[in-house]
Structure formats: structure tokens, C-alpha cells
């Protein structure tokens, strides 16, 4: 029930929503002015998880910085790794082997599923559906096992390298992923049964946090939040990278731009990601995963230990000031991360370290739209909206 925000009865109450609040995943803070339970005014504050990620880019060399990207969107680190090296490769004008691109796409899409699973779980938890959260976590756990076997770490994957990957996928990767692909739609079906036509869920999410298509574009929303408002914009379709144009998948688009549509769009995106992974696995080419250029990627162990060329390059690429050195220039490269457009703007002065790295995280833009979505709503709508936007403080506060 929306009240007229201008009709104030008595003195409004100021409530500090966060930074230590169960619904502000990470450390967000929203100062809300309440008339009873109705939100009159909301002021988002950020900076509680400031980590200096952008500044670190000026002190790390290009491969070292991959480790930092893990920590930005900590629900889908592989997508960040992917987006970052893509930007560096664009700057250096490298074409990585086809197999590498396919593996990157598979892992990026799997991490999209993992991200959406957690989003689903936490969003549902915020509305009181505890069980859905654990169903989501269970699927994510299966994915993290695959990631762990592939990259050696569950969260801090750091899997990509400029010009390739840390290492090739393991034997049996394909079976593991196919098993996951055949089982996770069952969980989605269960969640659909629990929530999609559930009267309480629909009441809580429909017409809550509505953003029209124009407003969504004006606020700079991207990803599922933009598409839920009815804008058919997906970088994988609009500006394909890494062979995305070769995959057959649909982009779900909502109509109302409310929490319910954002939920449905994300649910469908998981199915579509599954389709992409399936196709990528079917057509996974053989061959190396790293570019055949020892100035960019590490030599194989045989070369490093077997001949002097390899040994020298092995040292040089690790040594400060001798490794990956893109030409002077600047580049902006955006990828469709699970949350939306994740862009890396890199300025290079030709040395081994970036002159400046600037990140365009989707959450930053989403957070600025929060007052627009919750003003006029109720206290309970704040958590519904926050949950539906999936704001990750790690990338919000770089």
C-alpha cells in the first residue's frame, strides 16, 4: 500500500538501515526517513567497504592484479577475472586460442549460475523464505567444487592470465559440468514451485521497487535489473566478445521492472547460461589454452627446464618491469557479468604496471537507484529491493 510521500502525520522518524544490518549484505548504509512504516526519503551511503582496489592497480603488474579482481564481486570471481584480462588483451591486441575462450565462457556462465543461485537464496531469505536459500547454496556448493578442482580455490580463483589461463581444465571437467547441468534445473523447478506462484511471494515482490525502462536507462542500470524493466540489452548479444555470437541463447526480458520481474529474469538466465555451457562443451576445441608467445604467457615447464630460451622467458615474465607490458594507450572493455555491465578502463603508460585502472561495477549504478525504488514503499520493501538488486559491497566500494 503506497502512501502519498507528501502526507506526513507528525514528525518523521529517521532510521539507520545499516551498515550493520542483516539485510545489507556487505556493508551498505541507507538512512531512511519513515512515516510509520512508509519510507519518505532514503539516502544511500557507501564507502564502508572501501578497499582501494583501483589504486592497487597502479602498484601491481598486470597479472598480479587478477588476484585483486577476485575480491570485487565475491559471488562470481571468475567473471571478474575474465572481464579484466579481456580488457588487458584488448589493450595489447592479443587473440587468445579458441579453446581458452571457450573455457573462459564456460566458467563465466557457470559463475553466473552460482551468482544467481546465491542472489536467489539471499533475496528469498530477506523475504523470509529460508529454505530457498539453502537450496541455492547447495547448487552453488556443487559449482564451487568444480571451480576448486579447476582453479585450486573456491573463491579466490585467479584463473585467467593475460593471454590465456592459469592451466587447462582437468580431466573429467566435462563430466562434472554435464552432471551439474542435468541436475540444477531440478532445483530451479523446486524454487519455482515454492515461490513463483506463491501468493505471499507475489504480493511481496509485484509492483515493489518499480523502475520504468526510461528510468532504468537514466540510472545506468545494467544486466538483469535493466532487462527486467523491459530493455533488451545484453552485451553478450549487443557487443559479442569471446565467441558469444556463436552460441544460441535467449535473453529474458521483463515488462514491469519490479522485484518479481527481476526474480523471473534471473531464474530464466540460469537456464540460458546452462544452454550456453552445454553448447560450449559440445564444441570445445582442442589445442593450447595460452597464446604461443613467451613474452606474454609463461613458458611450459618442459621449456623452462629444458632450454635456455624458455628459462630466460620464465624469469623475465615474472621479473618486475620485464613482464607483460602493453603499449601506451587506454582501453575500455565491458563484459556482461552476472550483475550487469562490468567495465575495466585501463590507462597504460607502456610500463609493466597500469597508470590507472578504473572499474565500472554494476552495483555502483544499482545502488544509486535504490532511493528511487524504495521511496513511497514500506520498510519491508527496502529489503525486497536490496535483495533483488544484488548489491555487492566489494565492487561497490572498490
Amino acid at each position, binding site marked *: 500500500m503506497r502512501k502519498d510521500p507528501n502526507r506526513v502525520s507528525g514528525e518523521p522518524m529517521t532510521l539507520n538501515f545499516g551498515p550493520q544490518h542483516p539485510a545489507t549484505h556487505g556493508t551498505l548504509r541507507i538512512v531512511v526517513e519513515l512515516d510509520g512504516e512508509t519510507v519518505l526519503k532514503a539516502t544511500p551511503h557507501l564507502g564502508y567497504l572501501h578497499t582501494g582496489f583501483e589504486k592497487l592497480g597502479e602498484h601491481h603488474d598486470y597479472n598480479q592484479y587478477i588476484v585483486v579482481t577476485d575480491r570485487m564481486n565475491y559471488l562470481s570471481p571468475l567473471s571478474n577475472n575474465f572481464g579484466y584480462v579481456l580488457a588487458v588483451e584488448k589493450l595489447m591486441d592479443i587473440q587468445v586460442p579458441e579453446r581458452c575462450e571457450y573455457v573462459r565462457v564456460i566458467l563465466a556462465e557457470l559463475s553466473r549460475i552460482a551468482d544467481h543461485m546465491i542472489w536467489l537464496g539471499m533475496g528469498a531469505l530477506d523475504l*523470509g*523464505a529460508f529454505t530457498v536459500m539453502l537450496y541455492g547454496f547447495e547448487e552453488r556448493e556443487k559449482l564451487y567444487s568444480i571451480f576448486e578442482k579447476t582453479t585450486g580455490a573456491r573463491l579466490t580463483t585467479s584463473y585467467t592470465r593475460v593471454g590465456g589461463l592459469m592451466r587447462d581444465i582437468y580431466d573429467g571437467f566435462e563430466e562434472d559440468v554435464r552432471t551439474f547441468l542435468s541436475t540444477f534445473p531440478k532445483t530451479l523447478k523446486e524454487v519455482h514451485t515454492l515461490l513463483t506462484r506463491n501468493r505471499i511471494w507475489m*504480493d511481496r515482490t509485484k509492483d515493489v521497487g518499480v523502475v520504468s525502462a526510461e528510468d532504468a536507462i537514466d540510472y545506468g542500470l545494467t544486466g538483469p535489473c535493466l532487462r527486467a524493466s523491459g530493455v533488451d540489452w545484453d552485451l553478450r548479444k549487443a557487443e559479442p566478445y569471446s565467441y558469444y555470437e556463436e552460441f544460441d541463447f535467449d535473453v529474458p526480458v521483463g*515488462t514491469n521492472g519490479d522485484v518479481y520481474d527481476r526474480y523471473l529474469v534471473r531464474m530464466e538466465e540460469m537456464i540460458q547460461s546452462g544452454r550456453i555451457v552445454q553448447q560450449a562443451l559440445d564444441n570445445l576445441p582442442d589445442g593450447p589454452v595460452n597464446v604461443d608467445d613467451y613474452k606474454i604467457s609463461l613458458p611450459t615447464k618442459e621449456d623452462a627446464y629444458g632450454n635456455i630460451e624458455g628459462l630466460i622467458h620464465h624469469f623475465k615474465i615474472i621479473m618486475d618491469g620485464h613482464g607483460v607490458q602493453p603499449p601506451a594507450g587506454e582501453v575500455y572493455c565491458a563484459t556482461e557479468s552476472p550483475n550487469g555491465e562490468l567495465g575495466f578502463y585501463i590507462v597504460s603508460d607502456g610500463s609493466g604496471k597500469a597508470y590507472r585502472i578504473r572499474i565500472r561495477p554494476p552495483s555502483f549504478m544499482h545502488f544509486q537507484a535504490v532511493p528511487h525504488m524504495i521511496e513511497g514503499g514500506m520498510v*519491508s520493501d527496502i529489503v525486497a529491493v536490496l535483495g533483488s538488486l544484488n548489491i555487492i559491497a566489494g565492487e561497490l566500494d572498490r
Partner: protein
Amino acid sequence: MENSQLLVFFLSSIGKILIIVHLLLIGVMAMIWAERRVSGWMQDRLGPNRVGFQGILQPIADGLKFLFKEDLIPDHVDKPLYVLAPAMLLVPAMVTIAVVPFGSSITILGNEIPLQIADINIGILYVLAVTSLGVYGVVLGAWASNNKYSLLGGLRSSAQMISYELTLGLAIIGVLMLTSSLSLREIAMAQGSYPWHWNFLIHFPAFLAFTTAMFAETNRLPFDLAEAEQELVAGYHTEYSSMKFAMFFMAEYMNMIVGSTVVVTLFLGGWHFFGLENIGGPVWSGLISFGIFFVKTAIFLFVFIWVRWTLPRFRYDQLMNLGWKFLLPVALTSIVVTGTLWIMTNSRLIVGIGNVVSAFIVVSIVAGLLVMKTPKPAIQDSDENSHQPLSTQ
């Protein structure tokens, strides 16, 4: 009353009070354990299984932990009310059980002892009166905490409990009309041994309304707006710690148990089950009837747990809508229809059918009115299929 009878009454009452209060307290612990294990089972995880066999001693470990926690009283609270509030919630929850009959009766040495602490003739009024006192604990606790989140939780709780109290009271009027008694024992006895005579079939809409209101009274999901940890941190007990918090916690579970026993007595035939309660001698039949009552309550408590871990939470205004626009009309209609049909036909079957049909009509009318009054969504281009994910390129 002769002296010997008085003595028997006195001794048996003390015995019953001791047994029931302890059963209730143990029941709370069992419920906490059951809730955690059942939710674990529903959510593909284990739940506590380390302390004792299958984790059965976990609540005791938790209780000990609460006892040893620092009992913090913040400086900014209203101390007397702050200290009193948990007790004000716990005590009404506990004393309600006094009028609930938990079995038929046991005859020892020629003295018939009814399995009920006090069979007062206005039992149901007592239940309604005492349970509605519980809201004071919540509201005063929230108010005394001097915390904005607590305050919001307390306000929500008071609005919710008062609204649903009405439904709770109105839903049982039909039952009272057919039983012509306010005594819980007589209501249970009037239902007889067979499920098709029990009140939940005759007053099905009232049964649903009463059960829903019961969920709201106990502040459990989907009605746990007063706590709503994702919105209000912990709601009305945000500032409480140690045993004071544990008392709020216990009161919730005790309310559940007591609520279940009341529902079982009013609608689910009390201690009756296919004549099983009449088997055996004067002692055994009493014990069996207690067992039947116990099992029925346990099944109903399982439903409590089941619902909690399945449904999301209502929003404040939706909760009020449900209470005032659906449950209250259903309960009111149930009274009119039950009374009219009972006088006209004197047939329980017709009353039962009439209740279901009339409730269906009422809900349809209310839903229709609400749909007509609902403002259009902000964005105009929403079509009929807007709830479906649209896959376009």
C-alpha cells in the same frame, strides 16, 4: 464437599499442575530440537546432531549457554518494564494450558480425576482473555528497549495481535453455538469419537481462520513481522540478551504448544480417536486418551514447523488485509450461516456444507472487490502474461 474429596482434589490438582508445567517446559525444549532437526531435513542438511543421541540434548546445551551469558541491561532502557516484559509474555503462555483438557479421566481408588487442571465453565473465554495479555509483553518490551527497530517490531506486533484476536474469537462462535457450552471439556466431549463428527469438518472455514489467526498470535512465519530479522534486526527483542532473550524464545514455543492444544480441543476432537480412548480399564483409558491428545498436538506442531520453513513473510499492510478483509468476513459469515442453518435444519452435515459454500462466496466477493479497487501498475504496457518470463532476442 467432604474432607476426603477435598484432599483428593487438592493432591491431584497439585500433581497435575506439576506434571503439565514440566511437560510444557520439556515440550518447549523438544520443540526447539524438533524444529531444528525437521528444518534441517527439509533443507537437505543435518541440523544439530552432536549433543546426545541425535542432538536431543542440544536445547539443554543452548539453555546452559543462555544462563551463562552476560545479562546485559543497556543504559538507555526503561529498566522496570524492560525486566518485566519477558515474564509478561511467558506467563500468559504458560497459564493458558490450565483449562485445556488433555485426556478423559483416570479413576484411582474410586476417585475420578479428570485430566485437566481446571474445568471452568467459561474456559474458552479464559483462553482468549489470557492469550491476549501476551501482547503486553511484546509491546512493553519493545517500548522499554528504547530502540527504533524494537519500537517498529512492537507496533507491528500489537497491530497484528489485536487484529487477529478478533478472528480468533469470532471463529469459535460457531463451535460454541453447536456445543452450547464454553467449557473446553464439554466442547471436546461433544465432538465424539469419529473424525467426521469433529468440528473441523462442520466449521471448516472457521477452522482455517482460527488456525491462521493462531499462527499470527504466535508470531511465527509467515506472520513473524514483529521479529523479521531481515528487516528489523530482531524486532522487539533486539536489545535483550541472556535468559531474558531465552524467555521470549521460550514463550514463542510455549504459545505454539498451547495454541496447538487449543486447536486440537476445539476442532480436532480433543482426545477422541475412533473409540480408542475407551479401551482398557479406568486408568488405561485415561492414559490412552492422553496419548491420543499428545499425538494430535505433535502432528499439529509439525504443521507449524512445516509452514515456517516453506513460506515467505507477509508485509505489514498485506497482513492487515488478510486479517480484516478475508479472515474476519469468513469468521463472521460462519457465525451467521451456522446459526441460521442449525436452527432451520438441525443437521451438522448441512451446516458443514453451508459453511464451506458461504466462505467460498465471501472470499470470492472480497477478492473481486479488491481486484477492482487495485490501482494499475506504474508501467502501462503490462499485459496478461506479465508474470511469465518473456524470452525474446
